């Protein structure tokens, strides 16, 4: 019952906010926040039961034999559920302040609560179809929230793009379900995993590949990643909750959930590990070329999820999942803190127009500093532990080249995150500098005006400042400390590995790595320090700060086209698929339909003896005449049958 409560209270909150929005007004925010809070507490109360062998299970209903629905809570889903509702609670609270005065305030919270419900459904389902329903509904919530300011063309286009790319993922999962049901005759995970030993390698690979299309679309893996940067059109709390902490990690959840499948398919492991590694480095490289603070964070999210996918893909489940856990805190914090800046600067998102903000937004300064240290993996901060565990994990699972990519990406990450930090907080405030002097493209300048959320502007009192500051401050604690859960002196018995002992039975990864863990940590630290060093040299030295405007203009104008256009993936998808489909549609609709098919029909009709004449004669008549002809015709046929057919 408690499980049902945790799932359904956010849904009830969503319905209440949606239906009663005009009456609830600002109460909607508190109501929605409370709903997520209740869900969090309910999940927390189930902790004890969920960590027992077998976890909590609740059977719901059945469509027909083989299609049984139920919920389950085991350590893996418990972790996700706690992050979804816990971080979700803080972000809801923050949103009360951030969205204050928006004329669709209640609708925003309806969507947010709906998202929590859908995401809980995704992680709590004990079967493929329930998972797919949650999978589709989080995509819907994401669509609604990206396109929340729907009078903006760019937001509408971004929302549609995200939805369609995610449907490609849904369809991949559907295909996997075809294979599973055809072979297992049941949609339950447990039945599938029990039967997986009997699958042949090609079948197993096909199932994994189908599922991974879903995971790749949802988690913004190359080449299905192009929606994520555009998704930053949504309000900043949405970016923090959906496009950083929770929804985009659903792919990691799916692969971790299907560990019994992946563990038996080396080809699937290779596929997922490769895509993850590729995404990690591509995201990081593109992160170095962005100017919009949210897009920098979006590419860093993509890159960090690439790490997680690489980890869970090759069998380093505990590491991949741990990085989800720590990333949820520090990335949510980075987004919320950048939201503080955007709020303070009246919707300015371009870092070139920031600078010297340390005094103006001190909380954001500290929060972003901690977040940057955590994401770079500075020892002691949470990201250090989880990232090292992945990098070490891929090596132990026998993929040295991924190990190299992981280390390299760590260095690039350190560079672009400190670049963000330095440009934003050091030097002089550049908000009053002419955009052209900063090398900003003129069209980008025009777009900024539209970013203003539609405000009622009725001079209402502002929401208290603490609703936005408190969540940011609170998130600093786990951003620093969460990683220590992974720490152990003897290598095996950290709280983390004990928590997941039953979930991921120590896989066949016991092979001793060529590089010991402490050495990996040292190498990673060296690479990271090198990355930071480059960032310091370019942005933080005294001379760099003095010529900040000129330097930024130079960098803007000299940015390689390849990076500005994000390796032309978007251009390619648009040119081949979108245009291709439209071209075919026009060809069929404008030429084939009216001329070829209809032409053939007309030809057949006209060549029938006298038919054309008949039609013309009929068309000149009156409605009554038509009716008469029809009645006569039917009468003739009737008479024909009633009065006999010669045998």
């Amino acid at each position: 019952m408690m499980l049902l409560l945790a799932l359904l209270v956010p849904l009830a909150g969503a319905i209440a906010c949606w239906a009663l929005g005009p009456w609830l007004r600002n109460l909607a925010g508190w109501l929605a926040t409370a709903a997520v809070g209740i869900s969090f507490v309910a999940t927390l109360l189930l902790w004890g039961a969920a960590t027992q062998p077998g976890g909590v299970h609740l059977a719901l209903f059945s469509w027909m034999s083989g299609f049984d629905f139920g919920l389950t809570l085991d350590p893996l889903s418990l972790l996700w559920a706690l992050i979804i509702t816990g971080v979700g609670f803080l972000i809801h609270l923050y949103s009360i302040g951030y969205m204050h005065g928006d004329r669709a305030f209640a609708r925003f919270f309806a969507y947010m609560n709906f998202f929590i419900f859908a995401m809980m459904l995704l992680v709590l389902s004990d079967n493929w179809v329930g998972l797919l329903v949650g999978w589709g509904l989080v995509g819907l919530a994401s669509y609604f929230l990206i396109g929340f300011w729907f009078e903006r063309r760019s937001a509408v286009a971004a929302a549609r793009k995200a939805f369609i790319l995610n449907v490609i993922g849904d369809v991949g999962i559907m295909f996997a379900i075809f294979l599973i049901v055809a072979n297992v005759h049941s949609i339950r995970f447990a039945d599938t995993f029990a039967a997986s030993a009997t699958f042949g390698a090609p079948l197993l690979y096909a199932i994994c590949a189908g599922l991974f299309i879903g995971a790749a679309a949802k988690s913004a893996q190359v080449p299905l990643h192009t929606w994520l940067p555009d998704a930053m059109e949504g309000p900043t709390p949405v970016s923090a909750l959906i496009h950083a902490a929770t929804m985009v990690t659903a792919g990691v959840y799916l692969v971790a959930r299907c560990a019994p499948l992946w563990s038996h398919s080396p080809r699937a492991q290779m596929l997922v590990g490769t895509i993850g590694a590729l995404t990690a480095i591509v995201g990081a490289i593109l992160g170095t070329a962005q100017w919009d603070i949210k897009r920098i964070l979006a590419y860093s999210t993509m890159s960090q999820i690439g790490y997680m996918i690489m980890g869970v893909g090759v069998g380093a489940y505990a590491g991949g999942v741990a990085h989800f856990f720590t990333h949820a805190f520090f990335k949510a914090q980075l987004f919320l803190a950048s939201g503080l800046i955007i709020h303070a600067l009246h919707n300015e998102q371009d870092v070139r127009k920031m600078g010297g903000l340390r005094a103006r937004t001190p909380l954001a300064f500290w929060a972003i500093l901690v977040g940057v240290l955590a994401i770079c993996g500075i020892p002691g901060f949470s990201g250090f532990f989880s990232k090292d565990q992945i990098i070490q994990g891929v090596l132990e699972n026998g993929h040295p080249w991924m190990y190299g990519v992981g280390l390299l990406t760590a260095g690039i990450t350190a560079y672009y995150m400190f670049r963000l930090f330095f440009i934003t907080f050091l030097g002089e405030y550049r908000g009053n500098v002419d955009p052209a002097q900063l090398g900003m493209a003129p069209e980008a300048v025009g777009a900024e005006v539209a970013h203003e959320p539609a405000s009622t502007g009725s001079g209402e009192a502002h929401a208290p400042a603490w609703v936005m500051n408190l969540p940011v401050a609170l998130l600093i604690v786990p951003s620093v400390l969460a990683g220590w859960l992974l720490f152990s002196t003897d290598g095996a018995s950290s709280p983390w590995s004990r928590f997941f002992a039953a979930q991921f039975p120590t896989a066949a990864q016991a092979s001793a790595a060529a590089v010991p863990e402490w050495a990996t940590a040292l190498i990673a630290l060296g690479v990271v320090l090198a990355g930071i060093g480059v960032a310091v040299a370019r942005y933080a030295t005294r001379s760099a700060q003095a010529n900040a405007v000129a330097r930024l203009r130079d960098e803007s104008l000299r940015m390689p086209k390849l990076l500005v256009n994000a390796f032309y993936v978007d251009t390619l998808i648009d040119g081949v698929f979108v245009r291709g489909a439209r071209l075919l549609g026009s060809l069929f609709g404008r030429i084939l339909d009216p001329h070829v098919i209809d032409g053939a029909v007309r030809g057949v009709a006209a060549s029938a003896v006298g038919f054309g004449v008949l039609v013309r004669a009929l068309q000149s008549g009156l409605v009554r005449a038509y009716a008469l002809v029809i009645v006569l015709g039917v009468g003739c046929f009737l008479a024909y049958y009633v009065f006999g057919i010669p045998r």
Partner: protein
Amino acid sequence: MLVLVLILLPLIAGALLFLLPRDDVAMSKSVGAVAAAAVLVLAVAERGESWAWRWFSHPFIAEIHFGATYLSHWLVVLLALCTLCAVLASNVPRTRNMIAALLLLEGTMAGLFLARDLLVFALFWDAMLLPVFFVLIGWAEHPATAWRYFTYNFAGGLTLLLAVAAFGALYGSTDVIGNPAYHAIASAWAPWMLAGFAFAFLVKTPVWPFHTWMPQTYEETPAPMVAVVSAVQSKAGLYGFIAIAFALFPSYFRQEAPILIVLAVISMLYGALVALVQADAKRVVAYSSLSHLGLIVLAIASQNPLALSGALVYIVAHGLFSAALFLVLGYVEEREETRSLARLGGLGWANPRLTGVFCITALAALGLPGLAGFVGELIILIGVYQAGLVWAAILALVAVVLASAYMLRLLQGATNGAEVPDLPVRRDLTLLEGLAVAPLLAALLYFGVYPHALLVLMR
């Protein structure tokens, strides 16, 4: 007797409506709604009784025989629900005549679905064209549309009638629909009869390349009528495939199924691609229907039991969402006086309730998980895959992706973006308008979560 009432009640009520004053919209709407609601209650209550009367026994046995099978029960319930909603949503010039036509359509289509005799089936097949034909004559922008609709479908009706006559002469009886005593006819003419039936069904559904009458008809038929036509009349062809083509000619049907599969897959992709570029909102939905119905034809042609039970779910789901879509598009057209996607936009702020309803409807149509269309799609495609039609299943998934592209284009085109200054601003959805689509949306949600009642074929 109950089945007879299901057919006669709407026919009589429809005829009687012409006695009411022409301009009293409220009265004709209430009378029509009461009649339609009564039919709905009876359709739900109906428990498989049948009624038969020997019509003639020479040269072959023909019975005026009505009775519901499992499939026709659901089709009649869907018909009754859609008709009721369409009556409530009727807001066109000459409302009385429109409501009368809706009831006449309901009566003739109930007769079609309940007929257990091929000859009765064939007669109702032609009869159900008439209400739509006269509505097109009266309301369409071009009278040629009415003739186009009629000629195409009547051509199908003719081949159907010829096939029925041949069937009667060769088998000795036409009382064969859902008749357990029927033994498969073995005759050299059987493929020709099957072709005669199939042509009628392919045109009516429609299936590519027999679809070219449909976009224009759907575009020009007023919203309440086109809602019923696309939701239920299009199912007459599908019903025919299941209850006649497949049931009466099983071995020949199996032999010819590959042709049907190819046409179904082409319909799915072709309809989806053309829907992607239509400028008129109703034409988007018309071509989307071609695509969606292709999926059901694929299910039938696969002859897999799972696919067939999914087909029933999708028949109901498509009926619900296409009726709702056309009604909603009618609401939009009434307010904005245009259907052009290039003109429409920004309804979201002016009409939030209408936008909400539009949104749910469009999501149902694109197969959002949690709504009935998704259940149908999923179960059909699992079945199609099991039947070994792997490529058909994969191509169908492509159509699923395209569906979200064209449906979002439609939804966003009408509701999102900045408000268009030169479009009229009218009041939001009224209570009655809301009530007219609410049952459709509620049913979509219910069957989307718990389609148990529709999946009985598998139990």
